[in-house]
């Protein structure tokens, strides 16, 4: 049990009569890099939403760092250190990039004492780590897709997450950009952040993951090291289409 940061235990989620997650159990070690694959509609994003609190599960429990967070609102989970990105980036479009990053700084990191904290400078330094230093005062409307993805990452980093849940952060990026994002994400991992990554780009999954979980029809179908998973006949049949 020791070292498990996240404990998903028999989580079920229904939308009307449709069962999106059926008793999914999963645990993530502290510091681990976990890849999640599976066909569209297999429940990956629903699982992520249940972990982050955007959705409340209908059954089962979710434990984070030894605390049962199943009924916690999303903002409380964020304050505990669970950060996420969105499949389609959701920037705060009326704000500059620096202001985007300032929101989590004000509401999570410096929530206790805002006085004396230079939120603006800190926001800029986080943006600089993502290579967005020169765009700190730009509006989000002018950003390219890859920069929007980086902004999402910057915003999650401002939470100082212990668990980072990424939902297809590389979708729609060019091959060079995928490598660039991978470097950033692996860098975060080296800083000690536990990362779960949903991704369809197998090259990225293989390079990133220490362990891969394959989901299908609301269940965990396979769980193991990346090279075992790609050899798994069921995974090949259902997901890889070999």
């Amino acid at each position, binding site marked *: 049990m020791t070292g498990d940061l996240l404990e998903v235990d028999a989580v079920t989620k229904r939308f009307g009569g449709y069962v999106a997650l059926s008793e999914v159990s999963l645990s993530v070690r502290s510091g681990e890099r976990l890849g999640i694959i599976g066909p569209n509609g297999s429940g990956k994003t629903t699982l992520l939403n249940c972990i*982050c*609190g*955007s959705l409340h599960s209908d059954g089962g429990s979710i434990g984070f760092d030894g605390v049962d967070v199943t009924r916690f*609102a*999303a*903002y409380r989970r*964020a*304050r505990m250190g669970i*950060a*996420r990105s*969105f499949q389609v980036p*959701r*920037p*705060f*479009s*009326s*704000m*500059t990039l620096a*202001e985007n990053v*300032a*929101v*989590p700084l*004000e*509401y*999570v990191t410096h*929530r206790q004492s*805002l006085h004396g904290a230079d939120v603006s400078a800190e926001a800029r330094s986080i943006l600089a780590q993502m290579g967005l230093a020169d765009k700190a*005062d*730009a*509006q989000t409307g002018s950003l390219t897709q890859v920069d929007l993805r980086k902004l999402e990452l910057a*915003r*999650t980093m*401002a*939470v100082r997450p212990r668990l980072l849940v990424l939902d297809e952060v590389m979708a729609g990026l060019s091959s060079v950009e995928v490598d660039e994002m991978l470097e950033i994400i692996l860098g975060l991992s080296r800083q000690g952040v536990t990362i779960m990554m949903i991704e369809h780009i197998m090259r990225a999954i293989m390079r990133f993951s220490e362990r891969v979980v394959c989901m299908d029809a609301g269940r965990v179908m396979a769980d193991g090291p990346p090279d075992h998973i790609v050899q798994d006949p069921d995974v090949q049949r259902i997901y890889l289409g070999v």
Partner: protein
Amino acid sequence: MVERPAHCAVKGWNRFVVGAIAMLVVAVLLTRVVGNEYFFFAGYVVLQFIVLATAWNILGGYAGYVNFGSGAFFAAGAYTAVALIKAFAAPLLVQLVVAAMVTGLMGFAIGAMTLRLRGIFFSIATVAIAVICETIVLNWDFVGGARGATVLQPPAPAFFVSYARLLFVIMTLLAILAVVLARYIEISRIGRGLRAIRDSEEAAESVGVPTLKLKLFAATVSGALMGIAGAPFPLYMNFIEPNSAFSLNYAVSALAMPIIGGTASWAGPVIGAVLLGSVQQIVTVTMSSELNVLVLGLLLVAFVVAAPEGILGLARRLSGKAGAR
């Protein structure tokens, strides 16, 4: 019209506070200098719209939750005052405080019921609350029902020539209070949180913004300020009846003024209220009181189509500082 030195979006509280105090001093001086009683009548209406528009903007502008029922909050404040006068002959200060509490609670209650859902449900509920409140008042004999109620103005206090002039100064104070609150919310992290909610509620929640709490807070403050704007209304008019208190004009003005002035900053509703409030007074006096709602409607359509960011947005675009707030 009243001079407003605090128009330009000055940074820093010092200049702002100086502006606010100057405005109050000017308002008091005017009651000693100006002879025409109509001036205070018109000035009161404009100031009342500053409070209403500012109140609407706290929830509608900053957080993006549109309240169509401002008229109900305004009238609820007014009728709270009537009930207090009838029951206890309560002084104006008590009327103001209790009205703010009643309509603040109204805002909180509607919020608690609907703000968990998407924004449109809140808006629908605010339309419903207007109908509910009006029906209650129409059938509540104690406050006059459909006949209305006559409220006698107390004698003017020593310093003031007339009671209307006292109400003018009090409404100036309330306008300052409303703008100070709005500005505080705007530049504090509450304001940033509300803007994050308007941009993407789910993203806001995911980075630690307690969205429901913030929305409830904004709905409560907004409701309380709308009620406080309505509380002196019976004494100001000497008479109140449901049709005028629940007039569509309040609901439309409360959202048209911020939208035309610009919703991004506290200055927007103030500019909108001063401009439209004055235009409405001029139209009412020179043409007809029915026409002023038409003028308001046409201006609203024109701005929504041509300048959705309002006068503030236009000014910013013209001065070329697109990024400045």
